[in-house]
Structures are given as C-alpha cells and as structure tokens.
C-alpha cells in the first residue's frame, strides 16, 4: 500500500511561510508557484493551510487558493479559518477536494464535522489536530498552536472519526518546524486508534525522519514542508529513498 507523500503549504496570504515552532514566520514563496513546482516533482497531494486567518478572525482569502488549484491535477486540500458549511462549499467550488477544519470544530461547534460530512461526503472532511505534549497526554491546540483547548488528542481523534471525518491531519506543536523528527509516539497512537487515514506532519528534518515515522507509526501519508521549501531535497528524492528502503510509494 502506497504511503502518500503530501506537500504542506503554510500560508500567510499572499505568501507561503515557514513557521518555526508555529511562531516566527519566514517567507518562502507564492503558493501557486510552489504548488506547481511540487506537482512537477511528483507530489501525491498538496495541502494548503492558511495559518493566520483563524487567529486574526479574518475571512478565507479565496483568490490565491483558486489560483493554486488551477495548477494542479492531483488532490488539493485546503484549511484555515473554515467556520461554516458555506465555507466548505465555496472551497470545493474553487477546486479544493478536501477541506480541513480545526479551531472552529474544537472551540465552538464540533457538529460542523457531522454536517459537512453528510453534505460533502466523509472523504472531503479533514480534521486538523495540533497536538501539544504534556507529561502523560497530548492536548489539542488551535489557532496554529497558540490556544489551548483542554481537549485530549486521543479522545478528540476518536470523536472526530465518529462524527464523520474522513481523514486526520496530525501536527505536533512541539515538533513543528524544528526539523528534529516526528513525535513518533503521538503518530503511532493516533494511527492505531482510528480506522480512517491519518496524515502525519511536523518534524521531518531528513529523509531518515520520514522513513522512521512511516516504519514506526504506519501513517497513510506524510505531509512535508520545510525539507522541501528549503530545497534540501525534492519529492523525487524522498520517493526514491523510501522505495530503496522497501516503503511503497506512488511513482
């Protein structure tokens, strides 16, 4: 079974930025241009996350999302500041295949997951979980790793599955942007707990880190950002490396 290699674009409109530990942003490029580059390299999917709009309570900026969608003939996920069924609908109409939700579902209305899944199908609804590690549990954070929710990650993961989410995008507040490897225990626990696909993100600093998390946690996909954005490697390099290590990936 192929592990999906997904590119994550963290966007502070109009730029892709690279948050370090979810704080401190560095401009990396224009979303549509970067998406095209990764499409040409053989990415399996692109995930576009507006990382500031939720925090600043701004509306979704559709223009660049549509432009990015237009560059791609692979699945395109979009997240950030999604609050209503209408937001989902608009994003699908401009070319998103999946929509990721976090803050609004965690802090205000978990029921939006059920509603969206019923209307658009489970496969189109992704729940983005930002996990912060404490002594003996992980807590869900929102607004790009800034706001605590008091919710336990594992309980929430099970809940969103029951509510109809078709996929979990799992991020680690601690490991994100540090390039020191994934939070392996977190990834493994969530993958084993739910029956829906889990895409793990946050922490890939090397090809070995990617291999390690796939072998240890067996996620459905790995979302990669800095490693690619800093041109440390290409999607092709990642796939070749994984294949050499007997991990199945698409061509």
């Amino acid at each position, binding site marked *: 079974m192929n592990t*999906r290699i997904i590119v994550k674009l963290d966007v502070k409109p109009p730029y892709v930025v690279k948050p370090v530990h979810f704080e401190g942003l560095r401009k990396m490029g224009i979303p549509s241009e970067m998406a095209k580059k990764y499409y040409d390299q053989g990415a399996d999917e692109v995930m576009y996350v507006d990382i500031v709009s939720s925090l600043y309570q701004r509306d979704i900026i559709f223009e660049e999302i549509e432009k990015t969608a237009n560059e791609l*003939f692979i699945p395109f996920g979009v997240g950030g500041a999604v609050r209503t069924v209408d937001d989902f609908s608009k994003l699908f109409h401009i070319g998103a295949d999946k929509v990721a939700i976090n803050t609004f579902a965690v802090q205000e209305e978990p029921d939006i997951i059920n509603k969206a899944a019923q209307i658009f199908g489970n496969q189109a609804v992704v729940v983005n979980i930002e996990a912060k590690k404490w002594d003996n549990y992980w807590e869900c954070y929102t607004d790009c790793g800034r706001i605590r929710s008091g919710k336990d990650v594992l309980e929430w993961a099970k809940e969103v599955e029951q509510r109809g989410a078709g996929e979990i995008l799992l991020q680690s507040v601690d490991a994100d942007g540090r390039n020191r490897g994934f939070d392996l225990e977190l990834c493994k626990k969530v993958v084993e707990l739910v029956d829906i696909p889990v895409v793990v993100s946050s922490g890939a600093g090397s090809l070995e880190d990617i291999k390690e998390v796939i072998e240890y946690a067996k996620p459905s996909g790995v979302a990669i950002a800095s490693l690619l954005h800093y041109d440390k490697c290409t999607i092709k390099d990642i796939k070749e490396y994984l294949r050499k290590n007997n991990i199945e990936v698409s061509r």
Partner: protein
Amino acid sequence: MSNIIGIVNYGIAGNIHSIEKAIKAAGGQTLVINKPEQFNEVDKLVLPGVGSFKDAMQELENDNFLEPLRNNTKPILGICLGMQILSTVGFEYGTTQGLDFITAEVKPMQVDAKVPHVGFNTIDVVNNNEVLNDLEDEEFYFMHSYEVVNYTEIATLTNYANHKFVSSVKKGNIYGVQFHPEKSREAGIKLFKNFINLKGEK
C-alpha cells in the same frame, strides 16, 4: 461534427471545476449541464461524483435529470460516485435504486485496512476498455469508502490491502471509473483524451 462533453451538475458540492479543467487540458470542449434540456446540446456525458449514493440519486431526481439520463444513448463516463450510481442498487444510508445501466450493487469496502481507500493505485486490465487505452501501466487517484460489486462488466480490478475491487466498468458506450482521472496527473488527462476521441455511436 461537434464533440462537446457535458458535465452533469447536480448536488451542492462538486468537483465540476476540476473535471472541466482536466477536459480542457485534454483539448476538449465542455458544457456544464444545469437543466434537463441541455442534454440535447452535448455529444458525450461525464457524471461526476459527489456525496453519498442516496443524496446523488435524490439530487438527480430533484434536478429532473433522471429521465434524460435513462433515455440517453450518448457515451457516458461516470467518475467515482458517478460510476457507482450507474449500478442497480446502492447501500449507502439505506437502500437506493441506481440508474441500473450496469448490473451491480454498491457496498462498503470490506478490507483489513483504513477506509476510505485514498491514494494513487494501479489497475489490472480484465477486459479491454477504450478509455484506458495506453494507460494500463499508470497509477490513478482513488478516494472512496464504497465499491461496485459486479461480475459481468468489469474492465479493471485494483488491489487494496489484498482485496481486489472493481476499479472500472464498461458496457457498450457506458464507462465508469472508481478513481478520479481529474486528480491523476497526466494519466488522467490522457483518459479524458481517450474519452473525447471515442466515436459517438453505441
């Protein structure tokens, strides 16, 4: 001769945009069908997939699309749920009659793996299918929780976690693909090219 591909627009969600874009990239001309009379203005039909089997049939009925579809003799390409509703009956959120172009049932995937089945996967050709010409060795993008169970009109099978399911069907000029050609890189565009280049007759 005109060769306009009609994309049937039903339901509130839609990958219409992506399909339109891919058909255009394949050099085709498209018309999004919003009203029953527009079925007469096109030469071929694409039936996209949105939501659940039950909702899809309900939406087709609400839009008065069932009759033009049942009377249709033009080539049809059903994509994902659009392939599933070509079947006799579906079991997603209850039992729902489908379009019954293909004698088949649509059931939840029973596999020892994550569902939905998401990602690029290969196809094994069982019977020849013009829309898959020169695409036998390519990978296509799948995203589904249900599968078409059929024994007679199988064009290809796909293996997911040691479970073989029907990944495409063909009966006369009716074609269905469980995967998303509009999300399958150049291979998907090539599939649309094949569909565009099909001769119109039954």
